[in-house]
């Protein structure tokens, strides 16, 4: 099998909800081994894009290829190479953490012994070992993110697609997750993550794409996209929305 140089290749991806164009002919190439950040304002279409790229939402038009396999014509093979951490979807939270990650592995037709070994390792690495036999419903938001990440990793994917992986995660856990992801890319894996925390993306990603109103406004290595500015300033430039506070004068009179 040839080893394509792009891990994720989106072409003309389009999704419309009623009158709203959520994703508008979006093109994106994520090189293999990169640590790719997607940034954009709320409602820019990040989650929709990632859902369509991972087979969770059918696009109206366009294609998504993962490691050379089309997600929508050969979903089984494509999905075997992807690990997903969606945002805003539930998980089977009446299982214990150990059961949930085991379930994720077994669903992918892995051998049970292999699954159990990896589950133990993952739970230790993510600092969940003490909580492994608690129901996930009793986990904090950050622990839930971590256990979902374990589910995404258990089958050793080549591409990780993470929607807001650092939201509600405390700094210690964030550092742990970051370490795991950096090891993953160092070993040849590819990470795509979305976030609206610019500083974070600037610090940990080597590539970045700025998405607004369903299209890619700029994409490439972080330094190239920054063009000498900080990522946040560059982002505000591209998205082009005024940040000066207008009105609300009455709010400033609260000292009387």
């Amino acid at each position, binding site marked *: 099998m040839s080893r394509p140089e792009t891990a994720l290749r989106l072409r003309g991806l389009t999704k419309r909800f009623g009158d709203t164009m959520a994703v508008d002919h979006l093109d994106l190439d994520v090189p293999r081994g990169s640590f790719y950040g997607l940034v954009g304002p709320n409602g820019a279409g990040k989650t929709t894009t990632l859902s369509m790229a991972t087979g969770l939402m059918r696009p109206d038009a366009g294609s998504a290829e993962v490691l050379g396999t089309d997600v929508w014509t050969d979903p*089984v093979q494509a999905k*075997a190479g992807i690990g997903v951490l969606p945002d805003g979807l539930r998980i089977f939270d009446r299982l214990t953490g150990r059961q949930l990650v085991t379930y994720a592995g077994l669903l992918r037709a892995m051998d049970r012994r292999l699954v159990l070994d990896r589950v133990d390792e993952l739970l230790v690495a993510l600092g969940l070992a003490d909580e492994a036999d608690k129901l996930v419903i009793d986990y904090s938001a950050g622990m839930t993110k971590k256990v979902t990440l374990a589910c995404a990793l258990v089958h050793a994917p080549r591409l990780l697609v993470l929607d807001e992986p650092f939201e509600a995660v405390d700094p210690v856990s964030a550092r742990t997750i970051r370490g795991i992801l950096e090891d993953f890319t160092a070993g040849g894996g590819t990470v795509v993550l979305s976030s609206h925390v610019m500083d974070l993306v600037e610090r940990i990603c080597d590539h970045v794409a700025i998405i607004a109103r369903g299209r890619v406004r700029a994409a490439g290595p972080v330094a190239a996209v920054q063009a000498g500015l900080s990522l946040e300033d560059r982002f505000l430039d591209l998205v082009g929305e005024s940040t000066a506070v207008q009105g609300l004068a009455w709010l400033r009179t609260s000292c009387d």
Partner: protein
Amino acid sequence: MVAHLLRLKLALLRNGLRRNVAAIVGMVAGVVYGGGLLLAAMTALVALRLQADPVLTRTAVVLGGAALTAGWGLLPVLLFGVDPTLDPARFAPFPVPVRTLALGLVLSALVGIPGLASSMLVVGTVVAGSRSAGAAVMALLGGVAGLAACVLLSRIVTAAASAVLASRRGRDVAGMGVLLLVLSLAPSASLVGQRGVDRHVLTSLADVVAWTPLGWAWAAAGDVALGHWRAALLRLLLAGGLCLALFAVWERLLASVLCSPRSTSGTDSGTRRGLGLFGRLPGSPVGAVAARAGTYWVRDPRLNLPAVMTAVLPCGLLLPGLGSRVDLALVAMPLVSAYLIGWGQHNDVGYDSTAFWMHVASGVDGLSDRLGRLFPSGLLALVCVPAYALLGPLVGGPWRLLPATLGVATALALNGFAVACVTSAVKQYAVPPPGENPFSSRPGSVGVTLAVQTLCGAAVVSLSSPALVLGVLAWTGRDWAGWLVLALGPALGAACLVTGARLGARLFTRRQADLLQDLVALR
């Protein structure tokens, strides 16, 4: 403020319908469903005015009104779930005076199909009671008081129910209470069946009910028509007093809910060592899905409450079976059990809610997903169906029908599973989200729910029709039909299940992403 709440309710209703076509279809279905009943009731009420006997009118209006009041009190909790749109707890953050909020929430409960239908029924009772001007005025006042009592009662019951159901222990107790209530309905039904419905019995029943809180408001007009002015005024006063008392209770309850808003998450906590079913069932995708489904049946009150109900419900048939020696009731036990268990699977994916993404993202094959889901209910059927089939003859039913009941019941259960395999890959309706009150429902979804349920039921029955025909032949004395269906029923059921699972698996493979987005929209 009250007008504001009414506008809010209207906006919620409209937005609920705007959200998807299915809700509109469901609403139309609900209107057609309920509209027919309403039309029949209105016609009957007009007919009551036109006939000569005021006692008959009074009996009908009193019993009907009492039933309406009881329905408002019980149905939201038992059948349709608590309407969460105007859940009092949601108003906790806003500084609204309790009395205003209490009044507004009661009035807004009238907005919607049940409120509209009940208001029309009240108009109908005014027509039925208008034998004189005085009676008409009394009917109007009584009707308004009765309607107010209905709505207040339903508000109180739902608020109290949500408070009780918020705790896991409360849920279990409530589930058992509901079960006992359902079971106690059976003997009263059989009593009525034994005695037959007698006009005199009904008249004296109405006389009794007229002096209970359920009947006060509805009996006043009838009293006037019969010339008992004093009784009528007394009942009207009592009805008015009841409304005031109910309002005071409702206000109290509301105030306490607003001061201690409950958390929405479930309180089922604790630790479970090891892997549970995941370690015992085969380590394959189908085994994993089965283990997950089985674990959920044990831990999730949305699943184990109905499961217990399904398992115990056919026992209700024992009462007519033993009390009045109705063999058919005993024979029907395994059939009802099999039907309920099989058919009950048709919305299984809906209970996953958006956690279903895990199946979609893993690319699990359709057959594993379809068959794994059947594990817990299959186990239940394996225990319940033979048990009920044997229980009937053991307590006095005819032994010669055993082969027929076993054959037909197997066919019903397997066909139910077959239909479920297909429907749970096509269209799922809204169920209470995980961790929520198992008795809550989404506004505007009752119609879709009823439509899907009816369709699934019809499909199961028509697939089972060959077995059912043979079963009827066996019932009428042809023993060969019983033995034939014992062989044919399982064979036909197995064939249907194989076909259904294959078809369902193909649909699952093609539609899984769309199914997930449906579930996201239902969230």
